[in-house]
């Protein structure tokens, strides 16, 4: 429960953080809320040589109306997502999901950018942003680029972020009158999901799955079935198609597949898909 030795650097600006990242490369990790990184370091499962603390960069903590979307600074904590009236009104799925992350202490420290950059398939917010069809703004020395959430999660705890890039903003489309649901299944309130399902209705309904493979993923077969007119129940039966759920202390793969189907059916029902 004591981490391996590391060097601690505090960035005074996003530019400084990016230049420190460029300097230290793969050996560096960005520290935001620390609620994913520090436990891994204490268990010595992560042993970065350098920590670049961006916790002081208050300019990266905001929730703004961007017209057709809501723009969220990467350093915005879950508690702010949960309490934001703008999100509650325009993207209720996201504030509802943030409310289900960990416990109040975690939600006051953990950040949306940290959660997405960590790319844990068992976390709630990556799948929620994927389900919402969000866009991630990543910033490097050459400026910023925009990545669809669909392109961001590349493997287990791996993302499309380059070693010298910082995730700076998350944009989520306003969902307007669309139905939505987030179904989280876990044993204890503060646990990671065993399986969770995010669903948003519309002409192109989106369904995203938590903990059903190495990355947060979309239930592609379910979405396609819905577009081609299948009932919610029929579409939900396809929710586990193409997934590779893990085995862990809480569940085996076939149980996770079963949960994905049941939770998808419930999510679609709650979102108003007949």
């Amino acid at each position, binding site marked *: 429960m*004591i981490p*391996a030795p590391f060097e601690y650097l505090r960035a005074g600006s996003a530019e400084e953080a990016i230049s420190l990242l460029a300097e230290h490369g793969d050996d560096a990790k960005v520290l935001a809320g620390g609620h994913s990184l520090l436990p891994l370091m204490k*268990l010595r499962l992560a042993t970065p040589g350098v920590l670049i603390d961006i916790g002081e960069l208050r300019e990266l903590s905001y929730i703004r109306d961007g017209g057709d979307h809501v723009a969220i600074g990467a350093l915005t904590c879950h508690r702010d997502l949960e309490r934001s009236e703008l999100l509650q009104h325009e993207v209720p799925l996201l504030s509802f999901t943030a409310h289900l992350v960990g416990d109040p202490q975690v939600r006051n420290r953990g950040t949306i950018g940290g959660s997405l950059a960590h790319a844990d398939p068992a976390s709630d917010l990556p799948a929620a942003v994927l389900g919402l069809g969000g866009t991630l703004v990543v910033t490097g020395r050459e400026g910023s680029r925009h990545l669809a959430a669909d392109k961001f999660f590349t493997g287990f705890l791996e993302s499309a972020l380059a070693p010298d890039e910082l995730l700076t903003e998350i944009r989520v489309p306003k969902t307007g009158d669309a139905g939505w649901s987030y179904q989280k299944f876990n044993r204890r*309130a503060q646990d*990671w999901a065993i399986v969770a399902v995010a669903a948003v209705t519309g002409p192109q309904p989106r369904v995203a799955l938590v903990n059903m493979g190495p990355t947060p993923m979309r239930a592609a077969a379910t979405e396609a079935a819905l577009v081609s007119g299948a009932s919610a129940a029929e579409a939900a039966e396809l929710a586990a198609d193409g997934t590779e759920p893990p085995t862990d202390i*809480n569940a085996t793969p076939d149980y996770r597949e079963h949960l994905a189907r049941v939770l998808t059916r419930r999510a679609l029902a709650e979102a108003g898909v007949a």
Partner: protein
Amino acid sequence: MSILGNSVVRREDPALLRGEGTFIDGMEIEGALHATFVRSTIAHARISSIEVRQALELDGVVDVVTAADIDLPDLSPESPIMNAAMGRPLLARDTVRFVGEPVAVVLTEERYHGPDAAELVIVDYEPLAPVVDPLSALAADAPLLFPAAGSNVGMEIDARSMQADFSGCDVVVRKRIRNQRVAPAPIEPRVAAAWWEGEGEQSRLVLYLACQGVHPIQAKLMEVYGLPADRVRVVCPDVGGSFGAKAGTYPEWVLLGALSRRVGRPVRWTETRTENLTAMGHGRGQVQDITIGGTRDGRVTAYRLEVVQDAGAYPAIGALLPWMTRSMVTGVYDIPNAEFSARSVVTNTTPVVAYRGAGRPEAAAAIERAMDLFATEIGMDPAEVRRRNFIPADAFPYTNAAGTTYDCGAYEKALDLALEAAGYEELRAEQERRRQAGDTRALGIGLATYVEITAFGGGGEFGSCELRPDGSVLVKTGSNPYGQGHHTVWSQLVSARLGIPMEKIEVVHGDTDLIPSSSITGGSRSVQLAGTAVWDAAGRLVDLARQRAADHLEAAIEDIVFDQSLGRFYVAGTPAVDVTWAELGAAADGTGNPLVGLANFSAPGATFPFGAHVAVVEVDTETGSVELSRLIAVDDAGTILNPLLAEGQVHGGLAQGAAQALLEEVRYDADGNPLTSNFADYGVISACELPMFERIPMETPTPVNPLGAKGIGESGTIGATPAVQNAVIDAVAHLGVDHIDPPLTPERVWRALQARSTDPPSP
């Protein structure tokens, strides 16, 4: 009106809440080095070599110590009835027997250097075949953990002394069930610090230790170090929980003195949470074969319980727990025709120790599950089956089939109170309505009627009350609290007897220099024994003070009246002329003859708290998820001195009991690697998973001590686990499920439902 029986708030809390408690990890200890243990990463292996050179070269490392450097004997098994060939070396010598076993110790100037240095100690292992499951330990070809012992059985209770005959039964039901291994998981992990005072032959070992009783540890250190009592001091300040697991003796504690002597400096140690979950003892861990038989009209006439107790790698207190299970084997039921046998086996896992309830929850879980299985088999309501088999209220004292004599009980009344509070008939009606409607939120109602044993094993407890010059009282107690609130309740007892306000009463505990004797605070014994000792000591102080008052008032002692309400003595007939406690204290000051009341209290027998728990659950039959929606508890622990503290004890116990039913399990993979070594993987319950508890008061005072008190510390865990387990199984019984082993995780419940739905319907 007496202060006894009132919900006095805890005196301990203001200091704890302000961070002013004394926890060993927070103590300043000048010059102390930090000990970090190098622990086995393999469940069963020969040690071929240990290379410490690299670790010694790291900055800040003062010493690296292995078994070869330690000149102390192995810890012998805790009881002479255990296999003597299963002793435990303080550091593994040639063989490691569980993941987490200490192999070497690193001493560093800074705590943060310890894990870095420990990683540089290179241990070469030659793996041996591990024994992980307790049943496999009994196989004819099982690898032996201790070849010299000749088998893996560390302790055995054969069935010769208790045999049952099933020949006259209409119905016999058999089931193998598991009472899974759990982790005590106190908030404060194990922590200790040791140093030596003085030089050479006169030097004295001082050990600060978070534990459950200082004198038993002092005795162990005297034995291991070959020192007399005046050369070993053990001090226990505040303790952040224990639940039984800080009783007994751990190698880490014993070693600190030797390490300190070697380097000539104090040595301190605080384990990490992973160490706590892998190297502090675990609880429970029984495989139970139950056989229950009786008549079709609901009378149980025969019961058999065969236990395989998982003792872990070295037999500790856990290996003895089947004796506790045996003593309470038939629970609240009148079943003279009962049988018990047990084998405690060693496995390549963390040793098993006492955990809240320690052997009695296992007995209750077995008989309560058996009663439900029997009820299902004959098609009778489980409450009715219980009713037909209770020991009647007029049968006490009652001696059960194991020879255990219960003091008093009113089991049917406890069940009636619980069922009435639950609204049992309405719940059954709602359950039936949902079943008819095919509702996927199935309702389950689970019962557990239990009796347990507290303040067992004989032995007394010490208490004293000394009147100080300012009229305040210093109370010394042998019982060492670790969260229970002794200081509050002992102050209430002394205040009630002396008429001195609680704030003028100081309670001290936990130091072999201050307290003449103590035993382990466990088995829910403190109020009954140590509380009574303090009560008696206060009474003795009144007697002594009466004599001083007689001298002071120049009257005969027979004429002295003690006015408890005002805390003063006067001569009968002239109440205006009096002497107060403060005056008596001041008068004794400087005379070298203070007023001290001393007492040792031993009870003529154990006490038998009992109760009835009703759990109501909703099971999502699609996912297997369980919601515990109500938990109704009647817990009769005799006279309650402080309802607030008693309620706190019950709440904690209910939470831990429900957690064992639903969430908690220490798990290993097939090679003996721990899978639950942090709080992300080990599911301690939280308030979110629990309903508001519904407690129904009931008090049947015991005749065996003057307070009428029985133990309340463990009852919650004893009744709640089988009540919740029975509720979940009851919820899905109509779908063909008759048993699920705990913890009843969503996947386990779902799998049980899957298995039934693919089986042909039972005839």
